[in-house]
């Protein structure tokens, strides 16, 4: 432990040769008749080896005695004038007392000699001082003497322990070699203390003010009057404060962490409840946005119509076109008052009978009496074998296998809203926001051209142009990828999806010739010949319509054209509207689904 202060006092110690050792054997002499010195700072700690960790070091001050050989080595370089011949030596002290050595740092050899000699004495600590350049010891001493108890006034702190002055040519290993702490005190003090050490070394007749001490009855004639040093290492007071400091820091950290965590939980909960509210309001379709795969709980499933398949009321295919025209008119009206198709009255019942095959097992529905197929009708109007679609809805997805429309009621909120869902929803919203900005910056004509063009490959490049080339809007790569991959998140077109769709649709037609026409009155050739949606639109719909109407109509049109064409159109209201995301999403899905699997009649 490093020294904080050194206190020098004069002690009167009873001579153990004459007194019973069981009693208190020493007394501290008052300052007015003896030497005392308080050194508060200006102390350098050179080594803390062997220092007690939480206690002061105290001991009688002395000068180690060198043997002849050591003396020769030491005195070669310097005279011994720094150490008075009558300085207190080991022999001048009573035995069994702690010792603290005071030694001038004369040169390397001397220091090593003193360290060696001291280590034999089992001392408690060693004090070094560097002798001042002037050998006028007495003058220094007298100036100091006049200011004793000066608390270190006018003293200079010895050099740092890393200073080359303290180098003994062994790389500092001497500091750990000897098992006692080593401190350095200012030069002038060292000189003063050494002088006092010489003064208080003899018997009562020789020590300063010996007579007065005797007269005061403080000291007996046989007593030792010697200097004692008390080195306060601050160990006792420092360590607790360090612990307190650490504890405070720790507590502070815990408080901060607790607060932050609490805040984050609060915010997360808040966001979850906001998301829950938005889902309940039907603003967000978790599954369609690809945020969370939802399953249909049993009780919701049980509410979906389940009935034996019956083709009796099925309309003849011939009437299909007209029927659907009116149907799409109806859809337009309903959509215009922004009612989602999900909540539309189940007028779809007529359509269900047009479906003759279960899209999951690819078996036809039978109505033969002993065991007609039990069909489950989803809210979108698609029917499947109950035994096929029920496991799908309950274990895989709540989206209709055909049209990807959610079969859950609008505003259905899953039991748990997780933070992940919140995060992904925000991500989707951000992506969408950026996408719309890109779209907004785009030229209407390019989009329109792509819509009109309608051909898969062409479309794709056009959309790409819209996204990155044609505009001077830098598109982040993530969005571009999302766009070109047709991830659900972004509801953008993809080359592969495109082809999938084409292949799928073609395939369906081969298998089910009846699938040729869906509800759309558009010519079937629209798809294979690559004519755009505008072209296949009924004459009543001008090709360039990109208004609200167009947004709705393509839900039927997309059946032929798929996402690429539908998207630019359907994004239209998004660009201007506040929150029509749901509709966009739906439109798109309907588009893809219809495209691949036209509702069979």
């Amino acid at each position: 432990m490093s020294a904080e202060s050194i206190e020098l006092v004069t002690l009167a110690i009873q001579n153990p040769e004459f007194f019973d050792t069981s009693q208190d054997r020493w007394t501290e002499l008052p300052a007015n008749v003896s030497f005392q010195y308080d050194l508060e700072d200006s102390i350098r700690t050179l080594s803390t080896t062997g220092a007690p960790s939480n206690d002061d070091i105290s001991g009688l001050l002395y000068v180690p005695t060198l043997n002849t050989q050591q003396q020769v080595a030491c005195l070669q370089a310097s005279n011994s004038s720094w150490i008075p011949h009558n300085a207190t030596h080991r022999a001048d002290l009573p035995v069994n007392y702690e010792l603290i050595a005071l030694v001038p740092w004369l040169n390397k050899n001397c220091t090593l000699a003193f360290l060696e000699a001291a280590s034999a004495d089992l001392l408690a600590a060693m004090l070094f001082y560097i002798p001042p350049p002037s050998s006028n010891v007495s003058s220094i001493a007298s100036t100091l003497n006049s200011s004793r108890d000066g608390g270190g006034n006018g003293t200079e702190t010895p050099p740092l322990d890393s200073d080359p002055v303290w180098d003994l040519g062994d790389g500092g290993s001497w500091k750990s070699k000897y098992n006692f702490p080593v401190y350095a005190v200012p030069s002038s003090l060292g000189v003063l203390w050494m002088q006092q050490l010489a003064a208080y070394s003899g018997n009562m007749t020789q020590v300063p003010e010996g007579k007065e001490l005797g007269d005061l009855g403080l000291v007996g004639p046989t007593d030792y009057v010697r200097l004692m040093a008390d080195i306060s290492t601050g160990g006792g007071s420092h360590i607790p404060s360090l612990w307190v400091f650490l504890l405070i820091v720790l507590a502070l950290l815990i408080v901060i962490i607790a607060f932050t965590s609490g805040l984050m939980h609060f915010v997360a909960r808040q966001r979850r409840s906001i998301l829950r509210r938005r889902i309940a309001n039907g603003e967000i379709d978790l599954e369609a946005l690809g945020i969370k795969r939802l399953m249909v709980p049993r009780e919701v499933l049980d509410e979906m119509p389940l009935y034996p398949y019956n083709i009796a009321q099925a309309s003849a295919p011939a009437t299909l076109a007209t029927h659907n025209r009116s149907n799409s008119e109806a859809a337009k009206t309903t959509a215009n008052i922004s009612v989602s198709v999900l909540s539309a009255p189940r007028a779809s019942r007529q359509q269900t009978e047009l479906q003759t095959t279960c899209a999951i097992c690819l078996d036809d529905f039978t109505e033969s009496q002993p065991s007609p197929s039990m069909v489950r009708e989803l809210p979108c109007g698609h029917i499947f074998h109950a035994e096929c679609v029920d496991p799908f809805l309950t274990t895989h997805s709540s989206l209709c296998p055909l049209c990807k429309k959610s079969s859950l009621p609008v505003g259905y909120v899953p039991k748990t809203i997780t933070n992940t869902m919140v995060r992904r929803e925000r991500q989707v919203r951000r992506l969408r926001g950026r996408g719309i900005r890109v779209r907004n910056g785009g030229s209407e004509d390019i989009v329109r051209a792509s819509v009109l063009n309608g051909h898969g490959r062409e479309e794709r490049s056009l959309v790409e142009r819209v996204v990155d080339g044609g505009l001077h809007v830098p598109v982040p790569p993530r969005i571009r990828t999302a766009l070109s991959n047709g991830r659900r998140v972004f509801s953008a077109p993809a080359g592969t999806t495109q082809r999938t769709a084409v292949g799928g649709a073609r395939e369906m037609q081969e298998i089910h010739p009846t699938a040729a026409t869906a509800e759309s009155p558009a010519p079937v050739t629209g798809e294979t010949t690559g004519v755009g949606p505008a072209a296949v639109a009924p004459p009543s719909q001008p090709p360039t319509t990109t208004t609200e109407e167009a947004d709705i109509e393509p839900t039927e049109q997309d059946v032929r054209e798929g996402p690429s064409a539908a998207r630019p159109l359907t994004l239209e209201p998004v660009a201007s509207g506040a929150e029509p995301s749901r509709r966009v999403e739906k439109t798109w899905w309907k588009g893809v689904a219809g495209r691949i699997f036209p509702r069979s009649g």
Partner: protein
Amino acid sequence: MQAGSGKRITKELGEIQSDPPEGMKVTLKDDSDLHTWQIVMDGPEQSVYAGGHFKLILVLPKDYPFKPPVVNFQTKIYHPNISNDGKGSMCLGMLRTDEWKPPNKIVAVLNMTRNLLIEPNPDDAVESSIAEVYKNDYKSFEKTAKEWTKKYAVGK
């Protein structure tokens, strides 16, 4: 669902074998396992793979048709959308789990695969280096593809 899935697979297999798509031979790899199909696809005439016979393995998951089938090219092929790592996995949007829909049929998957051979899709590539060559240096792409076809897909 196991039974239903088996029925559907049998049905699809029957359809596909009685009326195989152009240039394809479909068999079960192992007669006892309905879920692993082996397909030999001829390189389409109009493509750079013409003349080659490509072996494909199509694995149907247990809960097919709820999960998409997995298609792997057994024969090495130089194609931007088919991985060149010995697995021969193919990138097809339709086969992504979130894109897959139960009504999709295997015939459609195979036709898509064939279309992909005719017209690679370098923008959604697995092998980006091949996609680069395809986009920037079609001649060299054509040459390498033909070489590979000759080397790996002819006469086997």
